[in-house]
């Protein structure tokens, strides 16, 4: 079997890479280990309008569960601040349908798709990735390729096999558990975030409303105390709501891996750590990088140069688009990691009366003057 581009993984990173490669007239195969695209969901399903701009797609009703105006931040002592517009505004997707829609678009653009097909190894010749060895229904198959795109998620077997450093420290992985629940009270126009060491140490809990009393209720933690699932059980114990789905997963908060390409290979999405370290949000960042990966892979094939020196263009381009955002988000995460519950309470109190989208320097400095512990940490950002 021979393709010009082989994409490993059929979630958003895989479908978007394969879509934009196929759009640029190269022959593309996408392999997915599950027997259905879009399951299991490993995502809180929130994203911003930017995702659709990147994809040049309209947000369609069939995969938008709900639109939200902003976010409610709940501090450990119960202080609540509301932030509307900007980054807090967006959509709650139905990922099962969205992922399938993207795969459908990719197939319509010409991508071949194989399901229940797991990449087991890479074909490497003189140090260059030349394809994958996959297993499909118990059969080993060799698939040769000019470029392989690794969109194989957090475990990123492929990037590691190509010799890239994918190892993460435990504190760089947010351990997450989420229920999709029915019978969740509250205004469906607002995302809810809950902070505190009792609630979600090293992370936060969330309620993302999907409309009609359905919501994703989940949390991410970085802690050795208890499992994410145990914290989720505690968080939901007082809610009169019923789970209809349990999602679990690890989210990379390390920032992007050091190098996202090598000879004949590109790495995208969670596999590449293209996730905002502060929030753990990765749909928009993955969409941006995967589109570039698909386009650069196609160009490399057409120009008959799939060497690392050509494919570096992928990394240059995605860094140009979102490199600064990811760097800044990592800096914020490092600061957030140092804040204690009292700091979170003070911040929420401040945000309650000051909209961060129209913050004056004077009011921020006045506030920090009263909270030297916060100032000590926040000055790293100034």
């Amino acid at each position, binding site marked *: 079997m021979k393709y010009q581009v082989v994409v490993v993984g059929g979630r958003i990173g895989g479908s978007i890479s394969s879509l934009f490669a196929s759009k640029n007239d190269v022959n593309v195969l996408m392999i997915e280990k599950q027997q259905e695209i879009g399951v*299991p969901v*490993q995502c809180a399903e929130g994203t911003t309008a930017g995702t659709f701009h990147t994809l040049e797609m309209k947000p369609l009703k069939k995969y938008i569960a709900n639109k939200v105006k902003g976010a409610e931040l709940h501090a450990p002592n119960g202080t609540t601040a509301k932030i509307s517009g900007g980054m807090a505004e967006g959509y709650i997707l139905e990922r099962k349908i969205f992922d399938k829609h993207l795969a459908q678009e990719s197939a319509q653009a010409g991508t071949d798709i194989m399901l229940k097909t*797991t990449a087991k190894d890479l074909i490497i010749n003189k140090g260059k990735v030349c394809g994958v060895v996959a297993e499909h229904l118990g059969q080993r198959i060799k698939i040769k390729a000019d470029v392989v795109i690794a969109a194989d*998620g*957090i*475990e*990123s*077997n492929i990037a*590691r096999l190509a010799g890239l450093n*994918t*190892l*993460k*420290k*435990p504190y760089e*992985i947010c*351990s*997450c*558990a989420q229920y999709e629940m029915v019978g969740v009270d509250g205004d469906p126009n607002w995302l809810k975030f809950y902070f505190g060491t009792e609630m979600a140490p090293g992370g936060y809990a969330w309620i993302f409303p999907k409309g009609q009393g359905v919501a994703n209720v989940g949390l991410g933690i970085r802690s*050795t105390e208890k*499992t*994410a*699932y*145990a914290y989720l059980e505690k968080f939901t114990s007082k809610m009169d709501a019923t789970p209809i789905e*349990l999602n*679990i*997963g*690890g989210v*990379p908060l390390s920032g992007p891996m050091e190098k996202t390409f090598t000879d004949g290979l590109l790495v995208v999405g969670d596999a590449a750590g293209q996730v905002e370290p502060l929030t753990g949000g990765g749909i928009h960042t993955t969409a941006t990088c995967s589109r570039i990966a698909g386009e650069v892979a196609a160009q490399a094939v057409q120009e008959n140069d799939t060497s690392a020196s050509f494919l570096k263009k992928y990394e240059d381009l995605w860094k140009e688009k979102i490199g600064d955002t990811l760097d800044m988000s990592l800096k914020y995460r490092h600061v957030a990691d140092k804040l204690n519950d009292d700091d979170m309470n003070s911040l929420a109190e401040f945000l309650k009366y000051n909209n961060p989208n129209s913050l004056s320097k004077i009011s921020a400095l006045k506030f920090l003057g009263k909270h030297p512990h916060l100032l000590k940490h926040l000055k790293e950002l100034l």
Partner: protein
Amino acid sequence: MKPEPGKCGYCGACVTVCPHARLELNNQVHLKKGCVNCGTCIIVCPLGALKLEE
């Protein structure tokens, strides 16, 4: 390290932190030879599906 049967949620968080690349996600988490029982994977498993070998 010992994966507890029936508890794994197939998310792959453990695989990405294993310092010796001894874990593999293959329908369920699979332990390759050479695990040094360091316990790193236990920290990130959302379901507590891994425990130290006694």
